[in-house]
């Protein structure tokens, strides 16, 4: 079995062939799907632990603190200890809560994250689902999460939760538009909704550089709307700690709370991964025109590392936002979307179509 860090398709193909030799096609599909599912479960666990740790450390340094330092060297085991604590905690439920909805709400949220992460291309050939409508799929699936938030807020039988859920509903429905439109701005240039093709089209340069100013504007809009989509940073109205105690997940504890927590960080990863794929070339290395030597050095770095670096950068940006800005009010949040982001986006997409039509992009 041949294995290369630069191209995972050899690995995945060999697994597929190996399985096909010994099982019928139906069994092959079932086994492969469970393997992918297990891989994503592992990915989510790792993501949750590392991102929570990263957030705590980043916020600590920004605030001139040290962050977790006690459990393990540099507090590295702190989040693992937290996970153990959350798993062992008693899942409490409000006596007058709607038991069924209260129980399934966290699962809806986490399932939405799982569905969305399936379309993320991690490296060449490391891609669970490569639809021809990848972008459409992701934006459709990621908005399922809001149903979970609404259910959680409604079923908790808590007024704070309900207000938080209603806020979240209004917020995600609005910002879904901006996320979609800013992604479409790049689709105008790439001519495809398929992630692998979008990445291939960036082999000679990332869209954020090739697409002139409209691409940059689209990127900024995507960052803002993406932050709002994940209920983070200055847009965390749904859980606004100082107003609504914890918003929609006030009544949750133990493992169910851990699901909300994990989904928040997983969504952050997904939004950053899609932003990196569409605007920053996914796993494509940085290439500058004809500089053959420079390009060769960049090619030496494996694609999965490139992808990781880009996602890390975007995640850091989102953390930086969160730990700097005050929170918006609900009417200001909607004003920002409908009066600023959406008109800018629409003009921007026209501009981009014009540039694409004239062939002015690189």
């Amino acid at each position, binding site marked *: 079995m041949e294995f290369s860090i630069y191209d995972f398709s050899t690995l995945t193909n060999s697994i597929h062939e190996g399985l096909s030799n010994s099982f019928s096609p139906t069994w092959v599909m079932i086994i492969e799907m469970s393997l992918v599912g297990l891989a994503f479960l592992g990915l989510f666990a790792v993501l949750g632990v590392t991102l929570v740790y990263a957030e705590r450390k980043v916020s600590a340094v920004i605030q001139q603190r040290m962050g977790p330092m006690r459990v393990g060297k540099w507090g590295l085991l702190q989040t693992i200890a937290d996970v153990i604590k959350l798993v062992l905690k008693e899942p409490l439920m409000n006596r007058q809560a709607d038991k069924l909805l209260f129980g399934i709400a966290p699962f809806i949220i986490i399932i939405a994250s799982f569905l969305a992460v399936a379309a993320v291309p991690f490296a060449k050939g490391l891609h669970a689902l490569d639809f021809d409508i990848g972008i459409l799929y992701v934006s459709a699936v990621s908005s399922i999460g809001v149903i979970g938030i609404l259910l959680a807020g409604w079923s908790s039988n808590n007024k704070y939760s309900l207000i938080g859920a209603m806020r979240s509903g209004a917020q995600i429905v609005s910002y879904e538009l901006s996320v979609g439109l800013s992604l479409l701005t790049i689709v105008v240039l790439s001519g495809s909704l398929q992630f692998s093709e979008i990445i291939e089209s960036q082999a000679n340069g990332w869209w954020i550089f090739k697409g002139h100013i409209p691409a940059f504007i689209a990127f900024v809009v995507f960052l803002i709307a993406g932050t709002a989509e994940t209920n983070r940073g200055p847009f965390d109205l749904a859980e606004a700690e100082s107003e609504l105690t914890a918003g929609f997940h006030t009544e949750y504890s133990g493992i169910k709370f851990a699901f909300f927590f994990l989904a928040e960080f997983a969504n952050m990863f997904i939004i950053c991964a899609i932003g990196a794929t569409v605007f920053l070339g996914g796993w494509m290395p940085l290439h500058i025109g004809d500089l053959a030597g420079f390009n060769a050095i960049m090619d030496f770095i494996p694609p999965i590392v490139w992808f990781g670096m880009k996602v890390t950068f975007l995640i850091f940006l989102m953390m930086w936002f969160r730990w700097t*800005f*005050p929170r918006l009010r609900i009417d200001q949040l909607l004003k920002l979307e409908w009066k600023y982001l959406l008109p800018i986006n629409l003009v921007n997409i026209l501009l981009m179509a014009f540039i694409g039509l004239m062939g002015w992009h690189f």
Partner: protein
Amino acid sequence: METLDHSEEITALESQEYFINMGPQHPSTHGVLRLVLTLDGEIIRKVEPHLGFIHRSIEKMCEKDAYTQIVHLTDRMDYLSCHMNNEAVCLAVEQGLEVEIPDRVKVIRTLISELTRISSHTLWWGVMGMDLGAITTFLYGFRDREMITDIFEETCGARLTMNYNVPGGLMDDIHPNFQNRVKAFLEHFKKKLPEYDKLLSNNVIFQERTKGIGILSKEDAISYGVTGPAGRASGFSCDVRKKHPYSAYDQVDFKEILDETGDCYARYKVRIQEMWESMNIIEQLIDNIPEGDFKAPTKAVIKLPKGEYYQRVETARGEFGVYIISDGKKSPYRLKFRSPGFSNLSALDHMARGSKIADMVAIMSTLDLVIPDIDR
């Protein structure tokens, strides 16, 4: 929780008002204050503060204590301006004893008052940011406050409940390091205070959240008795340091910060400006502490002559008054505190009506309530 009346059929466009309990345990009430909000969606129709969760009957306790013992109880009322509270009691007692207070005491009391004011305002700034969702400001505010509490710890022996005043003077002389530390703090804080503006005051989200929110007119401020920075932001000139100078405030040159707008942003701005003004006062006094005793001689058991005594001071929150009725014994017959927080809270309902829950948090934090000050 209010049960809804289902007897009438609710038509599609009719909206119902509902109640929400903000507190006693809520992250933004900064203590055990319970606010019963009547809401229509997110719009506040009525705010009803319920007090008394940490009532410790300090006024009653004062009636059995000697005058020296009263002072330390006032630390525990408005703990963020503890020195000013102590000073008010001591000034009232000194007024009755008719003792001549050494100049050194007056200057040191003024210096520590202004340091306390800065420390209270830095804490308020941090908490204000946190209430509006910018958690980082909280730690920056505490960082700068830490230097002041260190100064207090070195000179007074405690960080928060200092009890540095005694009737007739001070408990101890200032520590030899005091002047150097204060100068080091001023140098540090002059660099950090512009950062407050960069991080919060000029931030577009912050301005959107505070401008035009919770407007209190000058007339309303006077009729509700809203004093301190909250009153001055409405144009109500009420600075006791200017109107009725006590301690060394008649020796220093400073401005009374006034604003006309009366919204949350005006209250915010007034407090930021007051920090600069306090630094100005400290700078004028820090090198001019006169030599002398740190305490005027008083009898071991203080007995006030029969009569009534009132003394007001300007704390970080507003006008704090001490009213003593003495019947000539060693403890007061009755003692009443006029706390600024109580009057400021009374205007909350007027200011918050018609705004949203998120605005409510901003209004609360610009009033800068300290709950033990309200309940006593």
